[in-house]
């Protein structure tokens, strides 16, 4: 029986449960609608001129000013699906995309990835599930790395990241690496975690599950895990006409550039 079939009228008004259930129903409905919208957006979109942002803010002068400012530094952008995995997907994609033109650096990154599995198993993740994600992760990297031309590498990257199965596996493995990094440097990261949660709890609740959104702490740990730096450009309703930039980890020379608007990350291109 579906929840929507319940007839609230006149029944059970003496209890507060039906009220709560109605709220839950509305929430569930909202989630469903959000999911449908999100599913209609490609996991990783094609390259678009930065000005395509203007369409979203036709009458919004605060944002239009900021897009203008952003356009001074960035020419293109690539949108990602807003499903809570956007940081991990965007970061993973952009990182590999940059490597496609650089043989030696790609090789170096490939080695780093190759050696990443054992640390996760040592942390107590189930060996065979970690292996499952790891194998696919390496397969994707290999297919991109061994494509005959840079052009074909980029196509392979784009195709694989838009196939739900492969794309989600890339996200999961980066989530695991991020969790591994957080737990490895527990002492350092524990002071960033609010409340009484341990780093391990935080990882199980906020990092490892799919669709959980990312914060600064996720980004710093993900960067450390992949040995790269990210510049996050913040665009929000805040004062000023320019966007704020944050390099993570602080003081790095960022390779990946991401646009952050409240709750969502897209990829930026100079």
């Amino acid at each position, binding site marked *: 029986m579906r929840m929507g079939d319940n007839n609230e009228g006149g029944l059970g008004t003496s209890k507060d449960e039906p009220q709560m259930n109605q709220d839950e129903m509305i929430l569930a409905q909202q989630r469903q609608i959000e999911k449908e919208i999100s599913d209609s957006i490609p996991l990783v979109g094609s390259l678009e001129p930065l000005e395509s942002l203007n369409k979203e803010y036709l009458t919004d002068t605060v944002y239009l000013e900021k897009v203008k400012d952003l356009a001074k530094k960035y020419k293109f952008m690539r949108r990602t699906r807003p499903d809570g995995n956007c940081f991990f997907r965007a970061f993973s994609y952009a990182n590999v995309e940059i490597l496609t033109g650089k043989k030696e650096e790609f090789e170096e990154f490939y080695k780093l990835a190759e050696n990443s599995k054992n640390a996760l198993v040592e942390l107590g993740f189930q060996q065979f599930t970690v292996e499952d994600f790891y194998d696919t992760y390496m397969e994707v990297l290999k297919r991109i790395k061994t494509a005959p031309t840079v052009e074909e590498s980029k196509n392979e990257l784009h195709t694989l990241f838009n196939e739900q199965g492969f794309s989600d596996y890339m996200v999961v493995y980066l989530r695991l690496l991020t969790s591994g990094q957080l737990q490895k440097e527990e002492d350092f990261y524990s002071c960033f975690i609010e409340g009484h949660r341990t780093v391990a709890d935080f990882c*199980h609740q906020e990092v490892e599950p799919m669709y959980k959104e990312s914060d600064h702490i996720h980004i710093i740990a993900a960067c450390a895990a992949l040995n790269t730096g990210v510049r996050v450009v913040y665009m929000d309703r805040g004062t000023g006409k320019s966007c704020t930039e944050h390099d993570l980890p602080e003081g790095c020379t960022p390779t990946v550039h991401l646009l952050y608007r409240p709750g969502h990350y897209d990829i930026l291109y100079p």
Partner: protein
Amino acid sequence: MSLESKYNLKSPGVKRLMREAVELANPTEEYFATPLEDNLFEWHFTVRGPSATEFEGGYYHGRILLPSQYPMQPPNIILLTPNGRFEVNKKICLSISGHHPETWQPSWSIRTALLALIAFMPTPSAGTIGSLDYTPDERRILALKSKNWECTTCGKIAEKLENAGKIDAQPELTQEESTLIKQIALKAEEDANRKMVSSEPKIENVTSDEENTLRQRINPTVNTEPVINVETTVQRSNSDKLWTAAIWILITIIVLLIIRRIFLS
């Protein structure tokens, strides 16, 4: 028909389930699970009732339905053997206590789900959807009866685990796993949230020969101390409650009308 022709073996989800089938190929003393011959996305399992509980000596059989997005989405468990703890023929799913099912982690597996089910059986039902509040004695009777219970697909189910014997030298349950298992809660699906039915792929024949070749590396000595944080959310079966309320109101009205008629006439 061969597996290759039925499933896209390149799909990570299919690969993953094949891996799990190999991983779980041999029954342990605690559990056994295997995909249906004709559908990799539906499995049947048997778990042994945890010892020192009213389920001791019982064998509980059920179905596991894997969503097409598995392992990104959690498996659903349906118990078929009457057990007094969970309603039979009703989907229950896994989540960390106090959270939504979205907190399922892709690094968990069917084995995690089964271990969680075993650990969760002796916990108080606390009125959650799909839970039953039978007395320990009633559960003991059901446990006894379960030995002779038969699945229409698998036949007698108790034998599989009874014959499992002790498989030697199996690695321990990792610490991470045993902590996680204690945090996992099982509850019936909130139907409106997800469209599970539509997401279950309809796929035909599979045979998995290599299943029997690999030995399972899993330690069956599960930590079953029932110190699980049980969810206290009052998510009852709304529709059931409303229907009961409606029926009682109607009965009351009818009784009042009859009384009124008797007194007026």
